[in-house]
């Protein structure tokens, strides 16, 4: 059976429970479902923020996520995979990103979810701007995210 990833980039919030159910409901071949929700925090580097605004490169963002989803499907025996990334203005406490993976065994589900999150952080064309008391400013990329992504590179 060929597994197709569900990929969505949207302004609207998502419902983690529904996405998990959509992947696993009525299935008896799935033994493990991992979900990762990335949530907007109320501070960045110790500074309170009012909101984030997420910008993306339409077309390329979908293609990049699709490419990494396909790579995950080829590297791990997954039975389902969903990636949702929000764009637009997002306030503290709101969801930003969701990855859900389903597999017969837990290790594949965990690893594939971590792989996709590491790549979304470093390779998918999204940019975060924060609003704080000092005005708006773009969040800088972090070196440890690159290091996290590098561990998946096949040598």
């Amino acid at each position: 059976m060929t597994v197709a990833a569900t990929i969505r980039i949207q302004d609207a919030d998502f419902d983690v429970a529904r996405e998990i159910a959509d992947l696993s409901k009525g299935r008896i071949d799935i033994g493990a479902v991992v979900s990762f929700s990335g949530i907007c925090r109320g501070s960045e580097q110790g500074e309170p923020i009012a909101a984030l605004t997420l910008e993306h490169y339409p077309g390329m963002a979908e293609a990049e996520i699709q490419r990494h989803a396909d790579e995950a499907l080829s590297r791990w025996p997954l039975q389902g995979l969903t990636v949702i990334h929000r764009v637009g203005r997002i306030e503290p406490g709101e969801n930003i990103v969701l990855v859900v993976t389903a597999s017969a065994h837990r290790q594949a589900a965990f690893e594939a979810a971590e792989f996709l999150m590491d790549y979304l952080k470093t390779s998918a064309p999204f940019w975060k701007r924060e609003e704080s008391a000092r005005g708006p400013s773009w969040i800088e990329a972090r070196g440890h995210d690159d290091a996290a992504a590098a561990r998946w590179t096949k040598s």
Partner: protein
Amino acid sequence: MKVKYFAWVRERIGKAEETVEPPAEVRTVGDLIGWLAARGETYAYAFEKPKVIRAAIDQTHVKPDAAILGAREIAFFPPMTGG
């Protein structure tokens, strides 16, 4: 060819996209950054640290030495901060 700008590259240049026709000696992405940077103050500001700038040709990440011949759409942007 169409050029697109994102995040602070877009903000500094003051536009999201434009069509440019660089001369034939502008062969690589790095050449194009240099050529764009010479177009004016806003461009010079956007590209003041060329090593920080990431690029994509036809929606695929490329390095500065990538050839731009035949490209339909070239995008410039800061390091990505999604997820």
